[in-house]
């Protein structure tokens, strides 16, 4: 670490902001790579008040690890498996891979197809459609092409070809996933899994779970399905969810998208690039309610206003009737607050993107006294399932969309890995604030940690200061070379400690850029340290470089760091 720091200092011309070396070489600079979890506002590794004690593992995990290299381990005494995972989505897959690596004999139960929502009906096929829409958008943007000196005449697309690309990608990724499980020797058990009792799982055809297996630990990873509010009639043709939309069976001339979260936003990007006109219906008062307000505002300016998109905010779609008998799709809107009828839309199609509901029915949760909350399985911060009376259920975990903590594929996978770590005796609490999220519009939006209002609220409660730094893609050479100067990166941090609270990016390749920030948060890297890291020139990563450098950290101010040396 010292070496890496001195490297940056040995190049004074490249880093003219460096003051004479001694001040920088204070020990605090060692935080550069330090795992300072407490810096992130995490709980101590083992909460003092915890009543539950993790059972000491029967075997030495380190020895098992060696065995793992040669394949799936052998089960603990008296059990068919060390670990059974119900659901072979991205969460279950991530958990299974890590479990095998840790030497656990692992089985995964899948009632549908391997890959779950993400691979088959979510992130993966949508990325294929978005790849197409991004290119279409570029080719259609005459102004942009002209500025680059390019001439393209009348770009078009073949709908079936686009749909095939999405479908092919999904099956390719599904095969990759299946093969990686098979190669490691994970048993893939086909059927619907049900919890039969403590450390017992049944599986088989729906309603006939005829095979019972025992496992030392069980992970529920059953994911979610599209949520369709009452009053909306889904026919799969003119009124549909993302499940159908990803098949791209047709491109409506005018489509209403109910919900302006990241699913709705991505589909608006796809449909508007393929020639549809889009109307958003959002229940909250502003579009993109989950995003940092400033990013949301910019996103509206970049992704909504210039496109063939309009919107109704503060309204519920009370009733949606599919097109039939020559009539269009009818959407009855009511005011979200007063419930007064507001308007009726007549469109060619409606996409319901109002979020996702956990898929936890038929899991037999009642067998072990679990009461779901709106369908979600209640868990603690270690993904251990909590029963109706508030007690932890031993050996049962729930990860991913089914627990609702953070409904993202990679969050599910991270939770699975965290659970496997615990099973192996190494306590682990996943810091959800370090998990990035991305919306793959053109340009992309990405975020990690808190939004500015969240950070300010926390700051008020805990009595610390919050600062915000921003940089624009307009100042980035690579972005300008691509003629994609539209974009903003925003850093929310504590000026007293330099702790990174959140980073939000809207701009070209934002989804790839966010990881420098999410890694910094996960590893506890402070702004004053990461600003010395070097970025290749000219790259988009310099947007973040500049962002960190523009942050003003005064580590002398905070009373908590009074005794610490000051990096100036």
């Amino acid at each position, binding site marked *: 670490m010292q070496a890496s720091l001195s490297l940056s200092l040995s190049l004074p011309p490249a880093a003219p902001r460096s003051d004479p070396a001694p001040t920088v070489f204070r020990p605090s600079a060692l935080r550069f790579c330090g795992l300072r979890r407490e810096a992130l506002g995490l709980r101590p590794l083992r909460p003092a008040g915890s009543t539950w004690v993790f059972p000491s593992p029967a075997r030495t995990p380190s020895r098992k690890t060696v065995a793992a290299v040669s394949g799936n381990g052998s089960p603990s005494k008296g059990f068919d498996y060390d670990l059974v995972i119900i659901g072979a989505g991205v969460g279950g897959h991530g958990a299974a891979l890590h479990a095998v690596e840790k030497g656990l004999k692992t089985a995964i139960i899948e009632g549908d197809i391997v890959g779950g929502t993400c691979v088959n009906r979510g992130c993966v096929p949508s990325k294929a459609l978005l790849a197409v829409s991004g290119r279409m958008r570029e080719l259609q943007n005459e102004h942009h092409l002209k500025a680059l000196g390019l001439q393209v005449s009348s770009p078009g697309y073949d709908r079936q070809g686009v749909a095939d690309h999405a479908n092919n990608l999904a099956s390719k990724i599904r095969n990759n996933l299946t093969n990686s499980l098979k190669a490691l020797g994970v048993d893939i058990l086909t059927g619907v899994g049900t919890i039969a009792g403590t450390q017992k799982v049944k599986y088989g055809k729906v309603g006939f779970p005829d095979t019972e297996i025992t496992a030392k630990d069980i992970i529920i990873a059953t994911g979610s399905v599209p949520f369709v509010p009452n009053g909306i009639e889904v026919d799969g043709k003119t009124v549909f969810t993302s499940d159908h939309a990803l098949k791209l069976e047709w491109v409506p001339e*005018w489509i209403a998208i109910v919900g302006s979260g990241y699913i709705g936003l991505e589909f608006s990007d796809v449909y508007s690039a393929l020639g549809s006109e889009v109307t958003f219906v959002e229940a909250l008062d502003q579009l993109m309610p989950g995003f940092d307000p400033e990013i949301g505002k910019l996103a509206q300016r970049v992704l909504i206003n210039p496109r063939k998109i309009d919107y109704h905010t503060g309204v519920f779609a009370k009733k949606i009737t599919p097109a039939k008998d020559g009539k269009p799709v009818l959407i009855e809107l009511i005011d979200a607050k007063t419930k007064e009828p*507001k308007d009726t839309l007549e469109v060619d199609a409606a996409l319901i993107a109002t979020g996702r509901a956990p898929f936890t029915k038929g899991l037999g949760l009642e067998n072990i006294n679990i009461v779901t909350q709106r369908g979600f399985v209640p868990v603690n911060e270690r993904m251990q399932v909590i029963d109706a009376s508030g007690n932890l259920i031993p050996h049962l975990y729930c990860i991913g969309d089914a627990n609702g903590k953070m409904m993202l594929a990679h969050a599910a996978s991270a939770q699975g890995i965290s659970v496997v770590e615990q099973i192996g005796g190494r306590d682990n609490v996943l810091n959800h604030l370090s998990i990035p999220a991305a919306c793959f519009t053109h340009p992309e939006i990405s975020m990690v940690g808190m939004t500015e209002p969240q950070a300010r609220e926390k700051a008020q409660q805990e009595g610390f200061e919050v600062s915000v730094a*921003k940089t624009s893609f*307009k100042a980035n050479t690579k972005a300008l070379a691509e003629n994609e100067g539209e974009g903003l990166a925003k850093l929310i941090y504590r000026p007293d400690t330099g702790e990174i609270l959140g980073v939000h990016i809207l701009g070209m390749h934002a989804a790839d850029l966010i990881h420098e920030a999410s890694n910094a948060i996960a590893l506890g890297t402070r702004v004053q340290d990461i600003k010395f890291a070097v970025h290749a020139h000219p790259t988009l990563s310099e947007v973040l470089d*500049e962002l960190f450098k*523009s942050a003003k950290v005064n580590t002398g101010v905070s009373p908590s760091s009074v005794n610490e040396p000051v990096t100036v």
Partner: protein
Amino acid sequence: MASLANVHLGTPFLPSPASLRGRSAACGVGGVAPRRAPRIQAKIREIFMPALSSTMTEGKIVSWAKAEGDKLAKGESVVVVESDKADMDVETFYDGYLAAIMVEEGAVAAVGSAIALLAETEDEIPLAKSQAASSSATMASDGPAASRPVADTAAPPSPLETAPEALSSSPPSSNFSPVAASSAHPASEGGQRTIATPYAKKLAKDLKVELGSVAGSGPMGRIVAKDVEVAAAATAAAPVSTAPPKSVSNSSAVKAPASPAIQLGTVVPFTTMQGAVSKNMVESLSVPTFRVGYTITTNALDDLYKKIKSKGVTMTALLAKATAMALMKHPIVNSSCRDGKSFTYNSSINIAVAVAIDGGLITPVLQDADKVDIYSLSRKWKELVDKARAKQLQSHEYNTGTFTLSNLGMFGVDRFDAILPPGTGAIMAVGASQSTVVATKDGRIGVKSQMQVNVTADHRVIYGADLAAFLQTLAKIIEDPKELTL
């Protein structure tokens, strides 16, 4: 490198020239420049578009950090402005209330022009609003969110008298919008719903087209972008050559102002109107059309025209009237095919007449041409042409035609063939009336004035025999035109 910088601007709020005064003072100036007479108690300042760089001539409002009615403290960021280089937060140098936003988000304003008004006290907000409403046309009715109820009604002709009412009726709170928001909803009014696609709405706003007056051609009669473009083109362009037919000299006399010289070797993109024409023309290819021609003797018509010309009757009106009367007897030729499955029999006979205008063409419509007498029809035609010149044609005055006439006779063209406008069943191309040597009925050689007409029709609904019968009727009417003046 920081491209999002906070800039303090010394110039944006210039108190003295920009200060508005109270109403009473305005009276004294005779309403010419009411804002010039200073009064210290009521201070309303203009917020100007700042010059954020030496090269900046105009700026785009990225976003308003504050809403109308918000209290502003000195040094607070009010608006984000996009210059040629970067986005900048612009701060206020004065305490007060953001009374009226004059340039909406996304709009562009020249450096130094007023973009908002700042009131010193809450009481002055309505005053500032009415000031903004009367001084800025752009801020009125820019969308449901931008409702400024009280000020709007108070603003226009006699602001001095209505202002006190506005003051007293407005709630003490600075938030006025709810008053108007409740009644602003289009769907709830009179059951007359306007269905327009998102892009059509955007275009309508950009091109300043009133959606209520646009006829929709999309599925279920919804208004699509094309309809708005056509409507905009019609109002935007002035007619070039509207001279009565058959008078070459006349038309050249009415030549439009010379358009900018064409630069050879360049590619010039279509104007909105030309784009709309292009789209329509391509669309017409999906209609199976055919043509039937007829030669009509016009001696009688020419005589009639000479007789009633002094009463303001034009040849265009005569031709339209004759056509309408023929259509009356052949409703099939006045029909159209909308969906490929059915006949749409139009209830009225509306004759659209193509008129060339600078860089395009437009088709003013003589409505109910069969029912209106020839004199009224001629007056109507003159009115339409005047309106078209003044760019004031309403959409129903150019897009409700059921049958189209196109006349190139005044250029000496003896015959041509027209393309069928989408949505109609037939169009008639009228050539010049020329003296022709003909064999008369009694077997002699004679000279008669004849013109050729050529009808293009949609064969899905109009068949050859229909057109033939229609043309026969038309020829009869024109060759014995006394019915035209009845």
